[in-house]
């Protein structure tokens, strides 16, 4: 009988090999974009046919495209995006975790109905209602404001759904015990549910973050003043009518992607840790 240790390392080796293969396939298009950001835009499609190592690794890489970004409004766009996304996260987490808590922990008539409202809101294609919603906002004077930008992103049905799914897993006994000890519903939320929910909160943050960071049609409808010009729009503005400098656009895309990527890398750890280590058991 083969020793379990040898079996385990063989298993791990196979997994590593498989993972390397998969990760390489996933990274290929991104590598192509990154390598094109390091060479002039006129060479973007030159290296596609035939494929060579130069397709992915430019012979004379330079950072000219990144330097040229300073002359565009991308910098301002990224700053605006960071600010609006932060606001969306703060208000969004507050709103969504509160709602998920109420729907999971509190017993009241109409609980199922209101949860259905949440699910139903998920089914509404946002881009399809963006136009009437923008008119509504304009009527309320929210044209060209940061509030106008973040409000639709703050109530996110999917985040509520995720959080509620997680909250339902918190044992009732824990709650009952603390209620007997005299804790009110606010206390239960802040002292029991929240501390045990780091993974779910990170997951909800990811959902809220991506919705706001990738927003494109909505910010355009709300108005693109200096404060409200967001990253993706600044990126789109770099395309002139007759030609696209892909080197420049790809450099901008790399910058726009790096921030969510960093957050995902950091947040991953907290998101997937098992709840047994987060203290429930």
């Amino acid at each position: 009988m083969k020793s379990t240790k040898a079996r385990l390392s063989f298993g791990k080796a196979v997994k590593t090999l498989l993972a390397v293969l998969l990760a390489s396939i996933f990274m290929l298009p991104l590598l192509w974009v990154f390598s094109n950001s390091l060479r002039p835009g006129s060479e973007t499609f030159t290296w596609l046919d035939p494929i060579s190592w130069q397709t992915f690794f430019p012979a004379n890489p330079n950072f000219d495209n990144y330097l040229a970004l300073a002359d565009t409004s991308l910098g301002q766009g990224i700053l605006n995006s960071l600010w609006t996304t932060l606001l969306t996260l703060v208000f969004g987490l507050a709103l969504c975790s509160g709602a998920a808590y109420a729907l999971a922990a509190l017993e009241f008539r109409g609980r199922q109905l209101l949860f259905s409202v949440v699910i139903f809101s998920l089914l509404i294609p946002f881009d399809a209602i963006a136009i009437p919603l923008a008119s509504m906002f304009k009527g309320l004077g929210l044209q060209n404001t940061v509030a106008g930008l973040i409000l639709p992103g703050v109530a996110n049905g999917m985040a509520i759904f995720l959080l509620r799914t997680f909250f339902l897993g918190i044992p009732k006994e824990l709650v009952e015990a603390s209620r007997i000890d005299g804790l009110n519903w606010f206390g239960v939320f802040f002292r029991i549910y929240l501390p045990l929910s780091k993974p779910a909160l990170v997951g909800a943050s990811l959902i809220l973050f991506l919705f706001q960071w990738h927003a494109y049609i909505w910010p355009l409808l709300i108005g693109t003043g200096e404060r409200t010009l967001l990253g993706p729009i600044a990126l789109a503005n770099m395309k002139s009518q007759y030609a696209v400098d892909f080197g420049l656009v790809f450099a901008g895309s790399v910058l726009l992607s790096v921030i969510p990527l960093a957050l995902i890398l950091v947040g991953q750890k907290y998101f997937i840790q098992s709840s047994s280590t987060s203290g429930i058991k």
Partner: protein
Amino acid sequence: MKKLLKAPLQLAGLGLASALVLTGCAASTTAPSQSAEPSASEDITSQPIELAFMGPETPETFEPVIAGFTELYPNITINYEQIPFDQLATTIEQRIGSGDSAIDIYTVDQPWLAQYAAKGYLEDISYLAAEASSAMPSAMYDVNFYDEKMWALSVWNSTQMMFYNKDMLDAAGVQYPSSSPDARWTWEEIDAASKIIVDSGSAQYGYLLEQVVNYYQFQAIAESAGGGSGITGSDMLSLDLTNAGWTKALEWYQDSFANGLQPTGVGGFDTGPMFSDKKLAFFIGGPWDIGIFGGNDVNWGVAPHPYFEGGEVATPTGSWSWGLNPASKNKTAAAEFLKYATINPVGNLKTTEALTVIPANEEAAGKYLPGLESDPRSAGVSDIMLYEIQNTARTRPTTVGYVQFDSLLSVALEDIRNGAEITSRIDVLTAAIDDAWELFR
């Protein structure tokens, strides 16, 4: 599951009342206003005035013309807002359509003019028609008219020409096409030359139309084949895509891809790089390519746009106009800026400082075109462009249904390019456009 459905119904009931109110607020289109020349006594030189100008170009493009205007009117500030091109139509619809007074002037893609004029999104500026008529070539003057009124002023013009790779032609032993508009090559000659060049291995493909699946490019081909613009009728809402000319044009078009003379799969403005990357012997492109190709190392020359043997010579034309928002609160000042950028040759010339594009103003064009020959490769291009603009340019048809037509035709051209059976595809297209045009009936 029942509960899942109960909720929406209850809420719909709740929403009905409030939504009706909201609907009332959101919908609004204004009827076309009368053309009123602003009173001569309105003084726009003493008070500080702020004008809002909206368009798809980068801010650098309009800095010169704004600076030039501000020199004449130091009390007027012009704030330019850039909207990404593919969202421009929606933004105009949303903002101008809702009576937003925060925009004074905006750019109008000439084929969209009829639609905007009909919807009341443009101020009637017919009082400027006389001045415009003496400043613009007739095509650039006519294009701003709908329902016998003038709604915008042309800023830029365009035309198309043929670039060719001299080294590839030399290698295959093919003569250069003449640069004289009277001795221009036919599509048949291009096909023959391309076949020789591709067979000899001197080039991967023969030629490529820049905007290969767009009506802007294809119209000239259909017209040269005798098919007309494809849109007819007194209301310009009837289609004529099955006549002999259109059939000939579409068959020629499909064959060029099937025979490997034109490449498939590349579209938008990714086509130019194929010429710069030395994959094509010929390229049908616009004035902006003179600037773009100026940066490549291809030994290129310029010749006039081809036509079908025995057919008329037709070339694509048209570009952008600027118009006034009827809801603007600064119409007099805005009209002055508009005049400066279009009717005034100095101002119009300034709009072309940052881009390689033809000024619409006749005098400005006369000054601008020779400047395009600074690169020795573009020798002869100025005469070619001037000739086309004055003689062979065919503007896109004036119809309120242009957007639907253009969008659906483009998808059909792509399918035909990839081998779809022409007659049935055009039938499907005709049905789709007619259906989309239900909106106007």
